[in-house]
């Protein structure tokens, strides 16, 4: 095989990789992008317009494989798309659910679309409360990148002037439903914010993409591309430049190094043929997702990098953070009993949110530091799950199910863990996946701070429900297990000190200047916000820094 050298090899085509690919290609650089899975065909692979009765198991999934599901997006409608072949291990005492979409576009195919910017309160959290370290960038520096990312993808929301949540450039918001007005009235009484979420769902045509048709099954993929995903939004732009070569089913083994220990390419296995391949580039961008990026880099051992590439500080794979998710309260709104059914779940996700309201005036007002956000849900769903709360059988039972149909509500907390030495990924000394790659091993436990948030959210959400005139049915016995949120961060944290951080303030590895990390691995922690819009902003910034680096020599 002729030794072609690209300008840049990008590992991963999700939010981080997709943004890098687009930005680099549009700058005229020749890019080879590796995707560990195949390209999806929206017409065949997205079954979002199927009804339960169109599905063999009515959407409940094949009982034989149901227990292997990695969470809510990995279901009968998306069967065959989420990663199940590649194994990972967990340390004793660790539970970790690792939902991976390695199809082209990664998790952007199915993501929840909530898109709040990180704020100065997040970047300077350590200065406020004394825990851990500030980010090496501030909000002012990041704001333009957020604005550009928002304009590219289209985010619907309103200007809210919240201290923890900088406003951006928004499309018109989703309309509030009955349940939103009712819950907001409860929140208003308590001084808790209840606002339109920042949601990357096109409430109007945007950048050549059609407006949402509000069918409500977004997390099974969108057949019209009316919310951002890299296959709908970025990869076509990159391909139009003629500068992109996209390799499917290319499972990266390691970053290859030259005689000076610098990155020279990536070794991968072609999953379709099992052929071993190498691609070469002047630079490499890692964007395989937080755990997998660290996994590949830890497996990239050489005489220069005996513990993994760019790991002279020993922090590669360390500092894993995640969002604790859990149902802090659920119940129903008596106001809506017997009301006609209403299309409440037109986003299958987040119309509204309750953005962080804790520890805003001073960092130690609560028993915990930092803060959490809450996503309210409710109204008519496909299945009347609340029947469990209704006793009996017969005509009354049947009538009650209909009567309660518009009424259920629930609250999901999104609470960040703090950096901890106990939470990290490393290479399992024994286990290998079916391609012979040493498997990644995950070490993780919830910290007491995040569990305090969980307790706090249960009381807060019960109070909101009560103030709104609702009745509480209960609370989840326990939070979801770690990994469930798909918001893990931190294995290649960025910082100015090369002895403490893997990457610098641009996501460039301190040790290896032509190796960049452009996913959530570089984040100091996960904050109370979702990760995707920040991955896009940071990847855009990293990519432009890389362009300058390559131009400069």
């Amino acid at each position, binding site marked *: 095989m002729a030794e072609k050298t690209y300008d840049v090899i990008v590992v991963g085509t999700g939010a981080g990789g997709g943004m890098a690919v687009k930005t680099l290609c549009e700058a005229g650089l020749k890019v080879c992008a590796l995707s560990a899975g195949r390209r999806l065909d929206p017409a065949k692979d997205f079954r979002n317009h199927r009804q339960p009765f169109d599905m063999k198991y009515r959407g409940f999934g094949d*009982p034989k494989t149901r227990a292997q599901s990695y969470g809510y997006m990995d279901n009968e409608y998306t069967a065959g798309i989420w990663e199940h072949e590649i194994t990972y291990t967990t340390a004793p005492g660790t539970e970790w659910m690792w939902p991976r979409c390695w199809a082209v576009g990664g998790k952007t195919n199915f993501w929840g679309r909530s898109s709040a910017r990180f704020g100065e309160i997040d970047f300077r959290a350590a200065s406020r409360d004394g825990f851990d370290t500030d980010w090496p960038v501030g909000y002012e520096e990041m704001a333009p990148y957020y604005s550009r990312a928002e304009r590219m993808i289209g985010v619907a929301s309103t200007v809210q002037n919240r201290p923890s949540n900088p406003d951006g450039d928004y499309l018109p918001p989703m309309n509030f439903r009955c349940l939103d007005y009712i819950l907001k009235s409860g929140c208003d009484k308590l001084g808790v914010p209840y606002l339109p979420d920042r949601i990357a769902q096109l409430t109007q045509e945007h950048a050549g993409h059609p407006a949402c048709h509000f069918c409500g099954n977004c997390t099974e993929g969108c057949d019209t591309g009316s919310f951002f995903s890299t296959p709908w939004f970025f990869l076509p732009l990159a391909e139009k430049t003629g500068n992109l070569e996209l390799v499917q089913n290319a499972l990266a083994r390691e970053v290859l190094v030259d005689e000076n220990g610098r990155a020279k390419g990536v070794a991968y296995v072609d999953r379709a043929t099992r052929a071993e391949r190498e691609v070469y580039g002047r630079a490499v961008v890692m964007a395989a997702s937080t755990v997998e990026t660290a996994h590949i880099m830890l497996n990239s051992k050489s005489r220069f990098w005996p513990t993994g590439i760019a790991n002279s500080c020993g922090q590669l794979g360390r500092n894993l953070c995640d969002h604790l998710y859990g149902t802090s309260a659920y119940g129903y709104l*008596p106001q809506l009993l017997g*009301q006609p*059914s209403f299309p409440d779940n037109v986003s299958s996700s987040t119309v509204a949110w309750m953005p962080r309201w804790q520890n805003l005036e001073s960092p130690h007002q609560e028993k915990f530091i930092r803060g959490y956000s809450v996503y309210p*849900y409710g109204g008519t769903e496909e299945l009347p799950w609340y029947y469990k709360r209704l006793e009996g059988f017969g005509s009354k039972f049947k009538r009650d199910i209909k009567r309660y149909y518009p009424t259920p509500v629930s609250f999901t907390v999104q609470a960040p863990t703090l950096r901890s030495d106990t939470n990290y990924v490393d290479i399992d000394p024994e286990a290998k996946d079916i391609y012979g790659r040493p498997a990644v091993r995950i070490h993780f436990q919830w910290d007491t701070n995040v569990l305090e948030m969980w307790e706090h959210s249960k009381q807060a959400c019960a109070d909101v429900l009560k103030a709104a005139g609702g009745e509480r049915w209960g609370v989840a016995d326990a939070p979801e297990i770690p990994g469930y949120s798909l918001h893990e961060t931190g294995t290649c944290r960025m910082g100015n000190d090369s002895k403490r951080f893997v990457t610098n303030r641009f996501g460039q590895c301190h040790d290896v200047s032509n190796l960049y990390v452009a996913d959530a691995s570089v984040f100091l922690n996960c904050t109370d916000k979702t990760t995707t819009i920040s991955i896009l902003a940071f990847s855009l910034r990293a990519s432009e820094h890389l362009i300058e680096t390559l131009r400069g020599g």
Partner: protein
Amino acid sequence: MLALGAWASQFPGFSRWVYACEHLSPGPAEIRPAEYSPRFFSPAEYTTLERLTDLIIPSDGTPGAREAGVAEFVDFMASADSSIQYRFRYGLSWLEAHAQSLYGRRFMDLAADEQSGLLEHLAYKDHFRPGEEDGRAFFELIRDYTVMGFYTSRIGMEQLDYPGLKLYSESPGCPHKNDPEHKHLLSVNS
């Protein structure tokens, strides 16, 4: 059922009620041949099963479990899921034995009000009787599967007027904005 139990007991926000499986080509799931041959249950078990689904979601002026073919769904799921087969089979035999001990007749030979009466002790906390724990567990199981089967059928979803998977030109909003708390509906509803 573990999955459903976990799901239903703590409605998990983002979560929907679906789980991984191999997708087969879609088709109408409610074809009801005149004579259905159960895959898992014996003909006698199946007759009782169908009657139970009918008691849980009756055809009472609007379509019920019988019209929606719920018993066929339960039979299909039981045939596909070895983890629930024993519980169904044991539960049905418990019910037979219980009918015999209370009335000296088979469950299917009881009058409708006798059948309902028997179930009431399994379904309502105030009517629980000691020694019927197994029966209560079975009733919960059959009720779960009846709800699952009915409200995922076209007929069941039409009963609720399921509003999803339709197309809207803008995101549907509340029609009662002049009363954010929606208190005026409380009197209408009661």
